[in-house]
């Protein structure tokens, strides 16, 4: 790539090898960039245009070129790229054979490839930047999370929560940097700066995706590849100026546009501006109005809190507090929304899915359960004094209880659990203070 760009900068003719490498790159990057996955279009066309969500805009920006990967993990998750590379090599070979005149303007083609890559990368960066600037991608910890042991989270979840608990606009600043890099990519003179910021940012994102199995290792490597491709164009002159400290030639290339192109360029820029503004405003209004990725349906009134399981009777037999009993609940959390979570002495099956940025109705918002292996999560509906709780991960686990609230801090449940045992449960709210919110600036004494 560097010989190619050096030659280009020096306005020399391209060698046969340069042209072949360029054509391979051209086909390869287009195969990865043009959405070939029908699933992408299905998703796009399923959007309700009269009621668009910010998540829809995100999905628009979020085409992940997995192609036909044989696995979601490891080297096999890039298998589609290997095929794309083979296709690109074959395509470049055929192209080379068919191009008998040699008059094709490779520099113009190279320019257009850069345009496509710049816009693609900008879209992705803005897509992720907006949901950090308006912090919905990595939300703060829920009460259930606060009552989950550190070791009971999957690595991706503890990484998300660790970022989510940051103060001082940390997450927001990360988002602002991504957006700035994206915007710099839109203008040709600043594209190299945007690509530089993006590359630095993406190197870390690639690393943490592997380190914590965040699930976006294919996408992040793809984006890093795009940033490197943009950087490569200006690398020779930067090398001359900064490393050799000698003469550096500026980029004197000017694209030759046919008549129809300039309006198209403006149209593209305006379309992107509209996209950014609409996406950001929808994200903002969702953040203001909605608890997404958590459900919006309010929970039982004034029930928010963590509860000690004071009494627990199974089939009329009272079980005392126990650290070892697998039936007896240990504590229960009522969230502000219609979710409660239960801790007991057993290994709950863990929802191992990766987090997705998709607009879902409350019932399918599983972010609180995803990656949390310490608790069982139930969404619930109440009807007078009846409460029906449905396990968010094990869908067959539905339990119905009658509940009463003898005082403001007590909830009594009577019903049948998923093993058909009759339960009588008395929950008593605990006054719990959290070290997490105490800071470290003053001495802290806390349970």
């Amino acid at each position, binding site marked *: 790539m560097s010989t190619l760009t050096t030659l280009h900068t020096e306005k020399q003719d391209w060698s046969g090898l340069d042209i072949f490498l360029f054509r391979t790159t051209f086909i390869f990057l287009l195969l990865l960039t043009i959405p070939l996955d029908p699933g992408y279009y299905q998703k796009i066309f399923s959007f309700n245009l009269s009621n668009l969500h910010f998540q829809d805009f995100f999905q628009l920006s979020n085409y992940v070129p997995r192609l036909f990967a044989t696995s979601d993990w490891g080297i096999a998750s890039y298998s589609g790229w290997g095929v794309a590379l083979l296709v690109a090599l074959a395509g470049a070979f055929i192209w080379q054979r068919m191009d008998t005149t040699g008059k094709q303007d490779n520099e113009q083609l190279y320019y257009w490839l850069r345009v496509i890559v710049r816009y693609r990368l900008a879209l992705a960066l803005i897509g992720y930047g907006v949901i950090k600037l308006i912090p919905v991608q990595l939300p703060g910890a829920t009460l259930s999370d606060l009552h989950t*042991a550190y*070791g009971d989270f999957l690595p991706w979840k503890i990484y998300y929560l660790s970022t989510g608990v940051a103060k001082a606009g940390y997450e927001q600043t990360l988002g602002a940097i991504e957006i700035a890099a994206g915007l710099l990519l839109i203008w040709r003179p600043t594209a*190299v700066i945007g690509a530089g910021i993006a590359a630095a940012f993406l190197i870390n994102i690639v690393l943490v995706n592997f380190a914590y199995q965040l699930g976006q290792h294919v996408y992040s490597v793809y984006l890093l590849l795009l940033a490197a491709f943009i950087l490569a164009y200006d690398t020779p002159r930067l090398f001359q100026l900064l490393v050799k400290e000698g003469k550096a030639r500026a980029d004197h290339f000017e694209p030759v546009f046919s008549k129809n192109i300039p309006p198209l360029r403006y149209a593209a820029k305006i379309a992107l501006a509209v996209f950014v503004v609409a996406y950001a405003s929808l994200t903002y209004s969702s953040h203001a109005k909605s608890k997404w990725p958590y459900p919006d349906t309010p929970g039982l009134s004034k029930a928010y809190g963590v509860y000690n399981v004071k009494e627990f009777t199974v089939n009329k037999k009272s079980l005392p507090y126990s650290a070892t009993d697998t039936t007896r609940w240990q504590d229960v959390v009522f969230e502000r929304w219609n979710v409660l979570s239960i801790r007991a002495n057993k290994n709950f099956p863990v929802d191992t899915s990766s987090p997705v940025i998709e607009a879902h109705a409350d019932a399918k918002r599983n972010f609180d359960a995803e990656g949390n292996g*310490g608790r069982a999560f139930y969404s619930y509906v109440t009807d007078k004094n009846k409460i029906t709780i449905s396990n968010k991960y094990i869908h067959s686990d539905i339990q119905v209880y009658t509940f009463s609230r003898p005082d403001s801090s007590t909830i009594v449940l009577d019903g049948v659990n998923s093993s058909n045992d009759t339960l009588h449960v008395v929950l008593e709210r605990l006054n719990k203070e959290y070290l997490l919110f105490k800071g470290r600036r003053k001495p*802290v004494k806390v349970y």
Partner: protein
Amino acid sequence: MTALTLAAEKPPVLARQNNKKEWSSAERFLFRISFIFFILLIIPVEPSWYNKLFSVKTVFAFLNSLTGYRVGFYSLHSDSGKWGLYAFVSWGIALLVALAGAAVWTFLLRNSKRKAYHDLYYWLRVLVRYRIAIGIIAFGFLKLYPMQMPDPSISNLDTNLGDYNTYKIYWQIVGVSIWYEIVLGLVEIVAGLLMLFRGTTALGAVLVAGVLYNIAHANIAYDGGVHVYSAYFVLLSLFLLVQYVPNLWKLLIKKQDVEAEYYYPIFKSKGAKTRFYTAKYAIIFVFTILFGILRYDVHYHVGQLKEPKTPGLPKAAGYYNVTEFRLNDKVIPYSPLDTLRWQSVVFEKWSTLVYKVYKPFSISLANGTPNPKDIDRSYELAGIAGGRKFLYYTADLKKGKLFLEDKNRPSLPEGDAPAKKNTAISKGNKKGKKENALVWNFYRPTADRIIITGLNENKDSIHVILDRVIKRYPIKYDRSHASL
């Protein structure tokens, strides 16, 4: 210093290096400010710093002091003075002094014919580059030998997220992935190395500015406490980048061809050149290779670590349920709300025993920095709540005795200082046991059961039966293989 005076007396003559451009009076004034400002930030002026430097006992400690000077003319004793914006007060003082100094300097030289400070600028940049390099390389080694953020201990894995302090969460997440920590260390070392050569300074400065900005902001976001020191490296890197901005602007934005014309000293004699490069490579050797070896030695041989090193009871590491708990011969049933009855016990693989009760404790808000003695190695309890009592112990395996001492000593202002000798636990059967030291008997009827008897801190007798539980922590699951 010889080279500096030399360069100042004899302006270089070679065309490319002889940047004769004159500076405007504003540029000269700005330079004078920067010069004084950065000298103040880099060269220690407090005598106490030198006293401390020359009172250290090892080569490593000496070098480590050199790499870690933090300017501190004045610190405000307030929240913000330590954790927030006011912590930058020393920078403000340096800037004020620099302004005043530059004004005097300008006044004194009002008739001078000197129109630029290419040589001084060059040497200031050298100073800044080397300051960044030795500081950031020293930081990098902490992660390369991954001990800055140890992986979570058993008791920390068992601690609820809400019972963590934010700063501990920030460090713990890096410790979760040791190879990520090693890569971060490598990046810092490479960035530091890039600082040592002219041609790679720009790239190194970009790297340092990016990485250290992230660290500085995160330290504010999580109360990490080193935001000023990390921001210091950002400031120094940005200063280095200033030189490149005009040319980059012309080359990239205005699309003009440019030719770099930076000043470099020309050595009058071969001897001067030899001295220059000898000094340069001596510094590089000392702060990379030698420092790296010494750092390794200090961690892994001397044992200057955050986590205790002495092995705990053999084959006892793990999480234990408290099957039976007797207090003064009375069985107390398990309860998550009991302030005296233990809920669980963790034996770490080192000599720490942690028991959990439903009771507020003073929380260690220390950094848990490396210490030579196990009892002072407080990383495992730093920023951890949830009713946990962390006890350091020594064991007499023959007699079946444990000698224990509370690791949490919140009275220390900085929290990280080693214990004074008189509070250290008496080793084994030494006489003069402290009042806060506990002596318990233990025996192990089976591999997974430990029975402890003795007096607790209230002098009540306890008899505790512990049974090990094998825990499979989801944080160790590999999503690419494990089916859960």
